[in-house]
């Protein structure tokens, strides 16, 4: 008879849905989570596969080391660097994220999160257009028109459909699915299309034109029928959709990487956000970027409140500067500018373009991760940390900015990201002798 205990109302942090109704059964003998009631297939894998592995506490240049030694080595790398960058942060707690930004402030480096390669373009568009939005509970309770654009929630965010939108019953939507019209817009028919009443297949790279045409139709402006040749969507279909959008009671546009990662990027996000805002002249309409990782929203929030900007922040001059393309990590690496990197809870060596990965091989890299990854394999200093949500508590933010406190299930021998980053921060401060002050007096002086 196994010894087990149950943790109720735990939070799953695999995707941006951040479902907080996980009831976890923990096997005390094997130190594994053996059941995750209410989890979707991704959540079940998340809980099942994040047990306590036997791994070295740290590796320095491939040799086993203690966490303390690794913290010291990491601090030295950062203190010596002239253009250090900190990246990742979307799969860790806010408490850890705050330490990371503090380090960037002390050393005068850059801090960027996975937002820059995810909904960064939506953040850029937000700065231009703003956003009409709502929490997921509001959507569940009121939305009678749901439009999913450039995303495949059936495979990436299963409970977005079942807990928060399509099939969930709501206060003013008591019949759930039957009270709603669901529209899916994508370049290919994914499994998500099965839930849609209306599926719009758009030609690749033409989302902007479709969104802009819808804006025009909503405002009563004419659109040429050649829109069909350009986008693959007939004018009559767009006219019908515009009419539905204006006549619904509470409409929602939920959008994903299909808009941010393709031709147009922030223009696509901006067109969608503007469309949602425009519609408020006729009815209540909101938009929501569907966030990928469990605490990428937390990263946006923490970096924003501490620096004023959501991602791609540089502190080399002693104060925060923001400029996508200049300080975002893919660019800084691809141009070979960084001379040291601290990567937390991310795997750029797997997900970045080749020129960026090649540069990561050339510079000293410090990695904090519970698992072995492509990035930890090329790192000079690799520190094993405990998984947030599984072993480590703290605060995370759901995709709609609702903050939740984690309920960890499995104690881990490995330190949390927060404690390692705090250690690095303190050691760096010791090595530098306080905060790094920009050498303004040396500008113009002979080298």
């Amino acid at each position, binding site marked *: 008879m196994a010894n087990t205990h149950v943790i*109720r*109302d735990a*939070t799953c942090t695999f995707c941006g849905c951040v479902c*907080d*109704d996980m009831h976890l059964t923990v096997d005390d003998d094997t130190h594994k989570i053996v059941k995750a009631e209410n989890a979707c297939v991704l959540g079940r894998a998340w809980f099942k596969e994040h047990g306590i592995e036997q791994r070295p506490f740290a590796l320095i240049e491939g040799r086993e080391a203690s966490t303390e030694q690794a913290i010291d080595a990491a601090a030295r790398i950062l203190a010596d660097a002239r253009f250090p960058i900190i990246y990742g942060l979307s799969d860790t707690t*806010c408490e850890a994220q*705050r330490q990371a930004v503090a380090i960037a*402030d*002390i050393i005068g480096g850059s801090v960027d999160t996975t937002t820059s390669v995810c909904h960064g373009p939506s*953040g850029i568009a*937000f*700065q231009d*257009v*703003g*956003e*009409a*939005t*709502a*929490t*997921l*509970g*509001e959507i*569940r309770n*009121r939305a009678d028109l749901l439009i999913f654009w450039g995303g495949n929630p059936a495979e990436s965010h299963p409970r977005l459909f079942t*807990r*928060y939108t399509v099939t969930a019953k709501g*206060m*003013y939507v008591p019949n759930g699915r039957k009270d709603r019209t669901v529209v899916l817009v994508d370049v290919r028919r994914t499994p998500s299309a099965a839930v849609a009443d209306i599926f719009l297949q758009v030609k690749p790279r033409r989302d902007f034109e479709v969104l802009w045409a819808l804006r025009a139709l909503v405002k009563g402006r004419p659109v040429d029928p050649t829109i069909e040749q350009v986008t693959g969507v007939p004018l009559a279909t767009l006219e019908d959709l515009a009419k539905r959008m204006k006549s619904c*009671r*509470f409409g929602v546009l939920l959008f994903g990487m299909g808009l941010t990662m393709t031709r147009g990027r922030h223009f696509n996000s901006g067109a969608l956000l503007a469309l949602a*805002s425009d519609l*408020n002249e*006729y*009815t*209540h309409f*909101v938009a929501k970027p569907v966030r990928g990782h469990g605490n990428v929203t937390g990263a*946006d*929030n*923490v970096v*924003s*409140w*501490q*620096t*004023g*900007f*959501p991602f791609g922040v540089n502190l080399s*001059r*002693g*104060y*925060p*500067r*923001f400029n996508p393309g200049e300080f975002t990590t893919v660019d800084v690496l691809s141009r070979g500018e960084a001379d040291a990197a601290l990567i937390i809870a991310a795997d750029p060596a797997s997900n970045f373009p080749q020129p960026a990965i090649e540069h990561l091989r050339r510079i000293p890299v410090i990695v904090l991760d519970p698992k072995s990854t492509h990035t930890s394999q090329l790192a000079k200093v690799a520190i094993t940390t405990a998984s947030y949500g599984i072993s480590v508590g703290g*605060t995370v933010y759901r995709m709609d*900015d*609702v*903050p*939740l*406190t984690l309920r960890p299930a499995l104690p881990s021998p490995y330190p949390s990201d927060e404690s390692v980053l705090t250690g690095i921060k303190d050691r760096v401060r010791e090595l530098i002798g306080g*905060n790094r*002050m920009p050498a303004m007096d040396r500008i113009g002086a002979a080298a």
Partner: protein
Amino acid sequence: MLRIVNGRVYDPANGIDGEVRDVCIADGKIVADVPGQARRIDARGMVVMPGGVDIHCHIAGPKVNLARKLQPEDHRYDVLPRTAVTRSGVGGTVPSTFTTGYRYALMGYTTAMEAAVPPINARHVLEELHDTPIIDKGFYALMGNNVLLFKMLEQGRHEEFRNTVAWLLASSKAYTAKLVNPGGDEAWKGRRNANVTRLDEKIEPFELTPRQVISALIQTVDELGLPHPAHIHCNNLGHSGNFETTLETMRIAEGHRAHITHIQFHSYGHAAGKSSDHATSKAREIAEYVNTHPNISADVGQVMFGKATAMTADAPLGYMLARFAKGKWVSADTEHESGCGIVPFAYQDRVYTHALQWAIGLELFLMSKDPWRMVLSTDHPNGGSFLSYPKLIRLLMDREFRKQEMAKVNQKALRQTALADGLDREYTLSEIAIVTRAGPARLLGLTNKGHLGIGADADISIYQEQEDKEQMFNAPRYVTKDGELIIEDHEFRSTYEGRVLHVAPDYDPGVVEAIRPFFEENYSIRFDNYPVNDSYLGKHELVPTKPQRTGAAK
């Protein structure tokens, strides 16, 4: 330990009006005396006041962070480099959190209250406040559009209503109940961007009116004995003729305490013609009501020309402003609790409406007979940044300066107000100390703040006495917080973590079983994940309710 000598002390709560006397500090408090070897600060030529208390500002939380993210262009022009002891940051009308704390301190303010937070987001506010250094802080929890409370009220479940209000305050770590355009957010979200405009109209689909919501919350907060009364942003903010709504709302209090916030925005008379060019001032009527009803308090919500950011839980208002401004706009609905609107804004002296608003704010100050109950605010950043407080102080204290500024504004608007009739009053230093320190502290029920009596928190600001009051109040020479010398010779000597001020009114624990079912069915998070645990408080001070202070049985 510190002894401040030779300074002119303004401590109106204790009747001290510019007397030169010593102020002694030990262990974070004002004490009667300290030993001879204690450090001395020679405050000759300086004015010594309690630290400033901002009773209503928007400085932390989800709405503020959205506004912060919205305006990188603002931050670019106003940067705060790191120093040996302080973190870097950015400014503009919505500064980053470290900058917010430092800049309040740099102005001699030591306490600030975040004015509007949906309880479901309380953790976020507490996290940001944790990164807001120096000042003591707290926040008001939004309840005027709370669906659970609406249901209880419409069903006549008054006991449960009271216990739920108490429970919400205790579990979110808030300071008081905040009402914003009661009923309006429900109309915005549920009826395709509608609003409520009359206190006796139905808040569909509830059998409830704004009047009933306001009355219930005013009474409940009073019954709970909270240190600060229900804090109310009245319906119809910004609309011509809204002074009637404001008067009606104040009458609803019926002798109970109530605080009407940014009352300037609620003091407008009817437009004489179709265009808003003919809107008028009703500052006299509003000021008179506040003057003659000691149960009512207010903060002015002064408009200051220049850049502002409209950020409000009044979603319909936000949208209305967005349509004027024609630029970017943020709206964010929060399930069962609130809405919000954010619009970058600028007040211009040439524009009739803006000049009228500016003048009405000044009218309210100058016609107020009780500075303890008509205190200073700009509803930062809605009326203007808190950095404009020194200029506002100068406008109140310096008649000549005020006249110069009056000459620059839209004269047609000015003529609508008593300023044009020669409202000549000049605030004294003592009155300034009341509207910026002693008054707000007393209204907040913070018995250890806003004064320099024995036992008070040693939050002190020392200003070089100057002719130009704006210059004077812009940069205190010294600031102490809990007796720590934070600013000396205008520079930071160290950073500091202030306390979160919060209340925990007693409630019947059985009410949880009345709340839970509503949660499980209608919220998108689990009930047990809603209350905020104490770890988010950091340094904190639990301010007792009246029953808790007097030991009344509960």
